[in-house]
């Protein structure tokens, strides 16, 4: 069976990105968790991790700094879960590369 190295590389890249997002969340909000303990699709606010609106603002600022992107108020929807944040970051990066 042929191994799709391209796909494997993409999966690894994605895993790195979600891990970085988790590390950013944990560090910025002083959570007593390890990246392993946060599920990629776990809701960050309310019933999930239980973050609040102040955490949201802090997280937005931290993600902007860590990943070199600008997040506007309308895009707060992207902060539902680790996966949706990672999607958003990837999108912004693609846009930035497209502009060049």
């Amino acid at each position: 069976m042929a191994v799709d190295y391209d796909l494997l590389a993409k999966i690894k890249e994605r895993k790195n990105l979600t891990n970085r997002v988790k590390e950013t969340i944990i560090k910025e909000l002083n959570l007593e968790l390890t990246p392993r303990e946060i599920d990629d699709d776990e809701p960050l606010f309310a019933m999930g991790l239980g973050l609040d609106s102040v955490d949201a603002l802090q997280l937005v600022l931290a993600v902007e700094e860590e990943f070199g992107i600008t997040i506007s108020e309308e895009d707060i929807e992207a902060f539902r879960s680790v996966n949706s944040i990672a999607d958003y970051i990837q999108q912004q990066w693609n846009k930035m590369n497209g502009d060049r």
Partner: protein
Amino acid sequence: MYQLKAKEIAELLPHRHPFIFLDSVKELIPGKYALGIKNVTIDEPFFQGHFPDNPILPGVVIIEALAQLTAIIYASIGLENLNVLDEELKRVIKQKIGYLVKVNIKFMQPVYPGDQLCLISEIGKNFGNLKQVKVKVMVENQEIAIGELIVSEKGR
């Protein structure tokens, strides 16, 4: 760029003696930035207890001064002429003054009676009714405090 005297500050803020920690605003860009002055005198009530034999300005007072300056920044949004404030406008402005939500400030030097605080506040990111604010305090050319506040606006 606007300037405000104590009387005009009192028209914008609901705070009253002994809880106004802003003497004047030297530079104001409504909604964005302000530079304010607070003169520290031995006559302040809290020096009786903080501390009886060693008067030092409480850090929380510096934070409150920064919060009041920040309130001025967003209370003044949309004011064409700050010298003409009718009663209705004053009422609307006072309703906008919200709450201090988070404080992250590092203090570098103590402040003593006789010092003049130069307070600088700059609004950063806006999210819903929350605002990130970058703040700095100087006495002469010395950095006294630096950090970040998060404030909320009422009435949204």
